[in-house]
């Protein structure tokens, strides 16, 4: 299949970026910008109020003295707090990414049927498999990579803002920055992308399938079908036949099928064995932790279901004839 060459794929993904620049690029950038702005406003407000009430926190060097009295354990907590500040910026962008990917997939194989521009794309020698694959790549690689790059920039800015603010109160900026682990945070985030791809596949597959299959209102079908199935199953207690609780269906089918595009879902699924309070709460996000999900059947069954749904979406992309 020479039409499925790498060069073609590059241009197909580029086309998705042209069309969805707003969601893929501007949404995380604007979210990050607002996040920083709110933080800055908060800090300025606090400083102003502090100044009005004559509270000069750390002005006399108390904060520096406090830091110099900290032992290694306390210092690592300061570093942890700074890491949390960085993750929090990225966390908000991750939520936005979840929405962007969800609605992108829902429209990816539907919008061009509705405005009939599918007739233009289909007049070019591009295989349907290539088209669908380019949409999967855009949702599971392009969008998260952009979100994480933006997230890292915003996180670093957030870190700097905090450090500079504290430096006005007599704490050395570099001393603080050394306590944080920005590079470990970055590595954790970038390393998480492959897990995100695999984990999001059932949701991406289901939404693309609805997008390729439904003649109208893909959102309604995508959400109503699993929810209605869940309600029926709950009502009749069908899961009891398999000796499973009703919640099994809600968690493993409905939630997994609809919400896996939101980053972090795999963390919750794999966090059963994780004990909080071992001194490094953010260890949950370390690659050693996030990659444990690779050993779970949950992930791989999802990947299989996602692949099957993507194959079905490709078939409907080829044969749905309504434009």
């Amino acid at each position, binding site marked *: *299949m020479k*039409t499925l060459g790498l*060069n*073609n794929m*590059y*241009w*197909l993904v*580029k*086309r998705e970026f*042209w*069309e969805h620049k707003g969601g893929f690029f501007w949404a995380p950038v604007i979210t990050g910008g607002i996040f920083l702005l709110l933080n800055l406003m908060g800090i300025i407000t606090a400083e102003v109020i502090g100044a009005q009430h004559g509270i000069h926190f750390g002005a006399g060097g108390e904060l520096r003295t406090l830091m110099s009295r900290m032992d290694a354990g306390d210092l690592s907590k300061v570093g942890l707090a700074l890491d949390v500040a960085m993750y929090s910026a990225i966390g908000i962008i991750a939520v936005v990414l979840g929405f962007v990917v969800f609605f992108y997939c829902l429209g990816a194989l539907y919008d*061009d049927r509705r*405005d*009939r*521009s*599918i*007739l*233009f794309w*289909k*007049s*070019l*020698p*591009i*295989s349907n498999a290539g088209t669908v694959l380019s949409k999967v790549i855009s949702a599971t690689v392009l969008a998260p990579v952009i979100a994480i790059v933006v997230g890292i920039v915003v996180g670093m800015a957030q870190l700097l803002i905090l450090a500079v603010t504290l430096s006005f109160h007599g704490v050395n900026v570099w001393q603080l920055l050394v306590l944080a682990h920005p590079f470990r945070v970055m590595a954790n985030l970038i390393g998480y992308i492959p897990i995100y791809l695999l984990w999001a596949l059932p949701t991406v597959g289901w939404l693309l399938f609805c997008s390729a299959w439904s003649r109208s209102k893909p959102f309604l079908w995508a959400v109503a079908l699993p929810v209605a199935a869940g309600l029926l199953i709950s009502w009749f207690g069908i899961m009891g036949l398999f000796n499973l609780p009703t919640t099994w269906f809600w968690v493993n089918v409905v939630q997994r099928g609809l919400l896996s595009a939101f980053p972090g879902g795999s963390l919750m699924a794999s966090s059963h064995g994780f004990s909080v309070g071992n001194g490094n709460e953010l260890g949950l996000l370390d690659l050693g932790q996030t990659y444990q999900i690779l050993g779970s059947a949950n992930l791989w069954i999802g990947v299989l279901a996602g692949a099957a749904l993507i194959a079905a979406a490709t078939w409907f992309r*080829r*044969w749905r*004839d309504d434009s």
Partner: protein
Amino acid sequence: MSAVITATGLSKRYKNTAALDNVSFSIPSGRIVGLIGPNGAGKTTVLKAILGLTPFQGELNVLGLNPCTHRDELMENVCFIADVAVLPRWLRVRDAVDFVAHVHPRFDRAKCEAFLKRTKLTPNQRVKQMSKGMIVQLHLALVMAIDARLLVLDEPTLGLDILYRKQFYQNLLEDYFDEDKTIIVTTHQVEEVEHILTDLMFIRDGKIVLDADMDAIGERFIEVLVNADRAAAARAMRPLDERQVFGKSIFLFDGADRAVLEGLGETRRPSVSDLFVATMKGTYA
């Protein structure tokens, strides 16, 4: 192997109506074929079948390939302009050229840019900022730069003003068409294409009712302008159609003896639109 398209017993049903009813035809290379029919006659279904966009019964061979099973391969040699609305609204001129240049192996970028230079389109312009006529100019520039063997046009000038329409067909003839290429066009604006067509196909209720080249049509169909006193004689020869103009009658004959008709009055070649109206009489009744 000079036939570009061969259809044998082509049929297609939508729920309870037959869109195509056992249609057979063959289109050789280097022709411009007008596929003309009333609304809902099955024109678009024929084109969709040729482009592999819809499944069908019967046999269809396009450039030696089955459009259903070898669509991706086929589309390297087939171009397609549906009506004007199909370019995505977010697309920029520059991006459109870039994209087609990289995904289409037979696209000639320099040619496309030369065509675009003749228009008012600018590289940064988006489709949503263009008028209908400009969208067609962009689409035509993209398509004419592709060295394809078959070009399918489905109502390409719908909703355009006469300047754009004339220019559209003029560009096609002057800068695109040659003996290695074949063009199939469907349109309701018959008067504007009749001078460029080499072949004519009339389709009605899913059936091909006329399939002939323009020379044969000139031989076969004759229009006679008859004075009122000879009208009865003309009517006796069973004309296809009759209409009155300025107290005279115009009769349209299919395959009548030319010498006899010349005795009745002034003969001439009928226009495609008159032929169309006569053939399709009673379609909507």
